[in-house]
């Protein structure tokens, strides 16, 4: 118990004095995970929407792939990306292995099926007449699909939370394709999870606990913020206020 407490105190100390090592790892983790989540959204939301709204030959196979992808073990994804990127692999010429790009790629493979799968499930559960209604008011294929997505934005946010949660918490893939490296004494491909594993393997439980607490803290804060946006309230109104002029809806929304 004392060890855990010491770890917690150490975490507070590291955070309070902005320990450069911890700050770097934390920023790097956030950078990699955000990039992977955004890339997962950009690919996963259209894929999930397409699978939910269209019937075509081979759809069932793709749906099975996406569903299987939602439960992919990160280590297997890491291995797969490693085999792709290693010097003699099909994408070896990119020289991405043991770079941040490799980690992002692996994490996109993890996040994309999660986001696509939840998007697909949400849209399939949505009232199909809403899309019909949008089309009967003049919206085209794309416009009506976007309307349906907007109607299901709570589920989409859940998909994004799941995708982000999936990538920030995994260690196997990041370790395998990133290598948990320091470059010139500075963290290069070291994330909070891989660093924690390293500290434990070196017998420094206190520092490992400190990193774990920071990771947990970041996850909780980000998920809390997203939940606030999802469930409405003050923050959601602020976000809408910021976004309204971008989408040109202030005219109707403000009154």
């Amino acid at each position, binding site marked *: 118990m004392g060890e855990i407490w010491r770890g917690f105190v150490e975490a507070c100390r590291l955070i309070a004095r902005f320990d450069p090592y911890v700050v770097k790892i934390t920023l790097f983790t956030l950078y990699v995970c955000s990039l992977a989540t955004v890339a997962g959204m950009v690919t996963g939301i259209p894929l999930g929407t397409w699978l939910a709204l269209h019937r075509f030959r081979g759809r069932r196979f793709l749906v099975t792939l996406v569903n299987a992808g939602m439960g992919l073990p990160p280590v297997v994804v890491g291995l797969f990306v490693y085999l792709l990127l290693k010097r003699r692999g099909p994408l070896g010429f990119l020289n991405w292995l043991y770079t941040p790009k490799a980690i992002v790629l692996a994490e996109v493979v993890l996040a994309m099926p999660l986001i696509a799968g939840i998007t697909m499930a949400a849209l399939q559960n949505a*009232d199909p*007449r*809403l899309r*019909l*209604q*949008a*089309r*009967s*008011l*003049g*919206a*085209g294929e794309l*416009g009506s699909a976007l*309307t349906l997505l*907007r*109607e299901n*934005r709570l589920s989409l946010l859940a998909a994004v939370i799941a995708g982000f949660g999936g990538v920030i918490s995994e260690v196997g893939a990041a370790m395998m394709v990133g290598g948990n490296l320091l470059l010139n004494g500075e963290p290069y491909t070291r994330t909070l999870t891989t660093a924690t594993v390293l500290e434990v393997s070196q017998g420094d439980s206190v520092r490992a606990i400190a990193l774990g607490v920071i990771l947990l803290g970041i996850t909780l804060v980000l998920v809390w913020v997203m939940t606030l946006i999802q469930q409405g309230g003050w923050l959601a109104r602020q976000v809408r206020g910021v976004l309204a002029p971008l989408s*040109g*809806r202030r*005219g*109707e*929304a*403000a*009154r």
Partner: protein
Amino acid sequence: MRALLSVEGLRRDYQGRCVLRIDGFHLEEGKVTALVGPNGAGKSTFLRLLSLLEAPSEGEIVFWDGSRLSSLGRRERRRISQQIAMIFQDPLLFRRSVAENLAYGLRVRRMSRTERRARVEEMLRRLGLEGLAARDARTLSGGEAQKVALGRAMILRPRLLLLDEPLSNLDLPSRRELLGLISSLVREEEVTALFVSHDYHEVLEIADRLAVLIDGELLQEGEPGEVFARPASEKVAAFLGSENLLEGVVERRTEEVAFIRVGESGLTAVCDFPVGSRVKVLVHPEEVVLVPRGEEAGSARNRLPARVLEVRDAGNLVRVRLDCGFPLVAYVTRASREDMGISPGSRFTVAVKATALHVMPFTRRAAGMGLSEGGVE
């Protein structure tokens, strides 16, 4: 009469089963046509075909500008469909404010923000919802929500408004209010409307034309009064709730009239059926006159002795069930019941004019009323 839209040989199959087959139909411009039929008759399918939300298995739709469905390119299709608006049984409002819901179709059409705002404000005023612009549309009551759905369609100033049972989920006061609103908006904007309902009572008030769709077939179309007075078939009569649909055989005839044996008695009617034909005779209850026995029964050709079997209140009128050799129903006012002493067992003379009877061919299965189960709506 000018047709806004015509249908030729339209057919829609689902999984190999034909659910809609309409040989010919013209939608009159500027008129409200009510399309009625039991559940599962194919009414909603017909609307989806007309609104281009679904493609027919066969057949053609000719639009106001002469363009034909079969030869519409993608862009023309969009142009046509943007002039058709549809509202459904449920309001299906979007998860946004009332004003944003109203503006949806205008934004799709890339209308400028100033014009959009002006139109939304005008529509809110016409709907009587001025105070609710910023309200989340999903927090509205059923009646208000359906008003917004109507406004969202009418704000587009469509050529054709399709209404798919928009009243059926509302309580009676909201129903009346919405019907009044639909009527005024449609007339003011001179929009052609096709109003689908399984309950003809609710649409008669605003319908200029009445079309009856049963079992996927358009059985009759015409002025509502004419359809009620002279249903084209027994199925139509039964759907329209016609009482006194009697089975008989033409026993003898002159050039103009036929004597039709019904039960132990008979009726004289104006019709063309030859002797020996099995027919159905529709006697409209409001055409049945009760006369005290021994009194003059006017010029009516049919004068039959009758015994009252049952007397029941039916709203403002009284429903009298009679036996005059066959069962017959008549409606009288409360005052007549008192004055004439109409009660079970009392005897009268029933008078019905030969011209008031409507004779139809006999069909074995009565009235497609049992088709609601498993039908595709």
